Every structure is written in structure tokens, then in C-alpha cells.
């Protein structure tokens, strides 16, 4: 499940509307508790904890980590399905499972699928552990709030009072959250989630490579090998002094830069570096991207 701040791209309208919706929900909860002559703040603990836990599960479902796999076709669906099926106590593989239907040879398919299934299962276990932490955080936050508000507050009779209650709730919730997420067991869990998600991504790509190879398509490994050769060549040339240590400037100056999202950016046509004044030959050469020879240190 995606929230406005997760997945591919932030949607500010959605995030703000979602925050407003949750805020109203919270105010209603406050109002319900305070509807009698004497506010029953202790009655707030359960609904507050439930709301907060639900929000944590949705917004932090796999920590931030599984987003890395969201860019891979099938991975986001599978990840969400994995989280959902874990929450619902269902088995694996989840719906949208990208491995089952691919036409691979028997050996390749079985080993790749087995490994990926193991990773999904592991991810499910970790999600369950994460959910247990959210339960703890939500309950602690709610208890903290009730304890602090109980002795002092009357029913919120104005907008300002309601906002103060909201601020108090946020403080209690963040304190409870911080107390848990700074612990070493939580940090280990975050790392495990990230590592398992990354391993799954690698496994999926390996599987895709097998498929590409079967169809005679270029693979990532081949491109990587070419890239490594190019880098090695460049290093060799640089070492022999046949290539500049820094790329040439003039070509870039003739091309407009990518300036997405910025205003006031002037094009590069005619962009000349200031004429060197008293520059040494070496430093002028450096300005043109030529090799700079420095005295040995």
C-alpha cells in the first residue's frame, strides 16, 4: 500500500489532504472522549493507539527500504502483496508474484524461484517483527498521552485548545517512536529489511538476465563488463598522460545544461570562463581540461 510520501514520486496534494483527514479524525476522537461533563481521557487510549498503529503500518510498512524494489516491474506489487499477505496471515507467493509464469529452463527456474521464495518468506517474517514494534509504539504513545492530558485538560472548547491537544499527541507519539527506533534491535531489523529487499531485487534482476539471455538480448552483466573496460581504459590513458584528468570544458559550454526545476538559469551559449589574469601555463591548461602536472608532494 502506498502513501503520498512513499512509492514513486511525492504527491503534495495527497499528503496534505491525508494529513488533514487524519487530523479531523483525531479531533473527533478527542471530542468523543470529552463529550460528557467530565472528560474520560482514559477512554482515548485504545482508539488513539489503533489509529496510530494503523498509520504506522501503512506509512512505514517495510520501513523505507522496500521502495528500492518498487522500480522493478512486479516488485512493488509483490512487495505490497507480501506485506498484505503477512498482515492477513496468508501464505506465499503473493499475488503478482513475478517468478511463477516465466518460461525458464527447469534448473534455472527452480533455483531462482526457491531463492526468491526464501527471501519473500524472510521479508514476511521481518514485516511481522516490524508490525510488533508498531503495536508497541502506538500503545506507549497512547498511554503517554492519557497520562499527560488526564490531570490537566478540560474538554477542548476552542480551536486553540484542540490544537494544543494535537501538539501534545504528536509529542507523545514521537517520543514513543524515538524510544523504540533508537534501540539496537530495531536498528538491526531495519538493516535486515533493507538487506533482504536488496537481495530480492538482485535475485529478480538475475532472473531477468537469464530470461534476456534466453532471448539473445544484451544483459546488464554485459553492459557492466563493457563499462568496466571503458573505465580501465580511461585510467590507463590517464596514467600514460594521453588523456586529460578532467573533461574538456568548451563542449559543455556550448550545450544548455539540464536545469529541471530551476528558474533563472541562463543558457550556456557563449559561456566563457573569465580570461585568466597572470595564470600560469599549467593552470590555464587546467581551465581547458588538460592534464595538470603538480610537483611531487
Amino acid at each position: 500500500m502506498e502513501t503520498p510520501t512513499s512509492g514513486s514520486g511525492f504527491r503534495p496534494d495527497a499528503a496534505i489532504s491525508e494529513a488533514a483527514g487524519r487530523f479531523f479524525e483525531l479531533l473527533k476522537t478527542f471530542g468523543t472522549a470529552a463529550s460528557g461533563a467530565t472528560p474520560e481521557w482514559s477512554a482515548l487510549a485504545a482508539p488513539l493507539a489503533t489509529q496510530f498503529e494503523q498509520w504506522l503500518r501503512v506509512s512505514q510498512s517495510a520501513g523505507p527500504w522496500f521502495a528500492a524494489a518498487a522500480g522493478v516491474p512486479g516488485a512493488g506489487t509483490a512487495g505490497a502483496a507480501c506485506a498484505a499477505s503477512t498482515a492477513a496471515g496468508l501464505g506465499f507467493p503473493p499475488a503478482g508474484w513475478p517468478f511463477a509464469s516465466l518460461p525458464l529452463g527447469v534448473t534455472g527456474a527452480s533455483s531462482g524461484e526457491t531463492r526468491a521464495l526464501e527471501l519473500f518468506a524472510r521479508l514476511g517474517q521481518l514485516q511481522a517483527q516490524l508490525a510488533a514494534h508498531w503495536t508497541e509504539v502506538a500503545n506507549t504513545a497512547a498511554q503517554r498521552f492519557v497520562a499527560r492530558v488526564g490531570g490537566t485538560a478540560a474538554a477542548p472548547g476552542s480551536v486553540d485548545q484542540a490544537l494544543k491537544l494535537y501538539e501534545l499527541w504528536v509529542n507523545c507519539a514521537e517520543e514513543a517512536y524515538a524510544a523504540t527506533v533508537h534501540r539496537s534491535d530495531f536498528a538491526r531489523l531495519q538493516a535486515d529489511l533493507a538487506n533482504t529487499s536488496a537481495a530480492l531485487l538482485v535475485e529478480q534482476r538475475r532472473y531477468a538476465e537469464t530470461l534476456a539471455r534466453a532471448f539473445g538480448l544484451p544483459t546488464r552483466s554485459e553492459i557492466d563488463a563493457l563499462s568496466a573496460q571503458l573505465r580501465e581504459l580511461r585510467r590507463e590513458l590517464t596514467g600514460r598522460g594521453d588523456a586529460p584528468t578532467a573533461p574538456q570544458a568548451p563542449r559543455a559550454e556550448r550545450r544548455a545544461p539540464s536545469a529541471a526545476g530551476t528558474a533563472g538559469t541562463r543558457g550556456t551559449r557563449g559561456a566563457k570562463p573569465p580570461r585568466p589574469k597572470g595564470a600560469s601555463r599549467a593552470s590555464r591548461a587546467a581551465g581547458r581540461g588538460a592534464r595538470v602536472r603538480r610537483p611531487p608532494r
Partner: protein
Amino acid sequence: MSVADAGRSAPFPELTLRIADTLARLQRARDVAVGCSEKRAVWKCGKTTLYHYLPLAATRRVPRDTRPLLICFALVNRPYVLDLQPDRSLVRRLLEAGLSVYLIDWGDPDDADRYVDLEEYIERHLGGSVRYILGSHGSEALDLLGVCQGGVLSLCYSALHPGEVRNLVTLTTPVDFHTPDNLLSKWVRGLDTALIAASGNVPGEMLNGLFLALMPLRLAQQKYVRLLTSNPDQRTVEDFVRMEKWIFDSPPQAAAALAEFVRWFYQENRLVHGTLELAGRRVRLGDVRSPLLNLYALEDHIVPPAAAAALGHYVGSRDYSECAVATGHIGMYVSRAAGAEVPRRITAWLAAHR
């Protein structure tokens, strides 16, 4: 549930109206522009572009031999936050002081850049920018301003090439990555960096999610509720939207460089231990001997103040000053208070070190 539905049955109808008004202003602010000062691209390396800001009209008669200032921003965010809008622009304040300002924009690494590592970023991209500027100005050394992660890169470069950096300014720059309050560091300590490198470039959205997860309710809920309920005018809403655009406009990260950054700095704390090597050479903070101004934020949840203040213990500069500002990480670049104090301190310090 829509906001309208939620608000209709909510207590305090006036609050519903207030929120509806703010939502309408947000709609009008959707296409607000970011970035304000004129600049031109003067050099390029891979996806990295070096920009030179044009002098402001009021200061166009800057002598050509003005010592240049190079801003090295973080890889994980875009640098236009330093020039967001005229009244919130560190760059503009520096230009007003008559400085010749350059800025490195690392661009958007794609899959062809997944093996670009820190050595390449520091020696070829940052180093190439420095050499270009020195050549253009005919200078032996320049002033370097490193921001956040860019401050780490700047420290490395200054340690390896001390003769090329006359003055160094670090802004919200982590040095000791193992201070007890560093949540980000705790979370990434157990990451398998080989797996990160193998799984390819990391999308910007993932890092955004990570930063939000440090304080989720404050950063993904309370912030919006405060805006919605505070009766903001159109200008305030537009300022807010500009910040939101920047926060969530994060570039992807080259896999190799990110994996190295996590391992060398967050996991192994090599800057502090003096165990970092780049291009076959040891990077020692003790070799940074240029005058140094270290600015950091007291309420920084990404770079805790202790992580930045540690620089004073390790750096070799005899002329070392530091300044803690009462704001948060992003507030250092754009908040009203810090927006005045930070540029003033930087320009005054640079003027005193001419």
C-alpha cells in the same frame, strides 16, 4: 475519506473553513517556481555541471580577480535550495557581498553511472571543478563551501589538496558519524553495502522515505496540519510549496558512491579514525590546515550537532571557528532567522580572511 467529508462532521466548523482556505491557496501555489539567481554552466563532467552565478546588477563591477568561492552541495539533494527565492537565498547573499560564486550540481546519475565512486566524484568532478575555476581566475587557491554531505567531500578534497583551498567553510557537515544521537547512523550500520552496490542506483524516493522515517509524525503529518490551521497568507503558502518541492525532488544515487559513503563514513567512521584512503592516499583531517569556519544546526535531526562539532577536534587548522545556530537541518539554508545569520557569518568570516 476526503477532507471535505472529514471536515463536515468534525468539531469546530471554523477550523474546517480555515483548512479549506489554505487548501485553496495551496492549489494556486502548485506551479510556483524555484531558483532565482542567474547562472551559467561553465564546465561539465559526466552528469556533474559547474555553474557560475552572474554578479547582481548592484555589484556588477566586481574586480575580475575576486577570489572565487565554490559551493559543493550534497549528492543526496539538489542544490537549488541555496537559491530558492530572492529572500531565501544563500547564493544571493554571497553575491551581494561581491563574491564570485560557483556551484556544483551533481545532476541525475543513471544506470551508466552506477559505478561512479567517491574517488571519481571527489577527484574528477569536484577536483575538475576546482581546477577549472583556478585556471579561469588565474588563482592558486579558492574558497570552498561544503554543505552537508558536500562538506564531507570538501574536507576530503582539502585534506588531499591543501594548496588549492585557501579558506574552507563547512555547513551542517557530519564528521563523527557515531555520536549516540545519530539515528540515521544506527539504522544503516548493519547494511550490506556490497548488496547496495549490486542492486544498482538508489532512487531518490527511497532516501526521502528514510529521512521521513526519522520523525514520521512530525515530518509527514504535523508539518501539514500546522500549515493548514495557521491561516497562512498566499506568500507563506508559496514559500512552503517551494520547500516541499525541494524536499521531495531528490536525485537518484550512484550505487557505488552511496555504498562507499555508507560503509566508509556511517559504518566505519573513517574520517574520525583517519583510515580513509582515496586515490591511493590517506585522507587525514589533520592535513586540512586552511582557515576553517564550521557552521551547524542545534536542532538538526539528520546531522546531529555533536557529529558536526567534532570537526574541531580532528582538523589541523590553527584558525578554526565554529558557530551553532538554533535551527534545524533545512532551516540552516532557508529559515528566516538562519537565512540572515548564516550568510552574514560566512561573508564576514571570508572578508576577514582575504
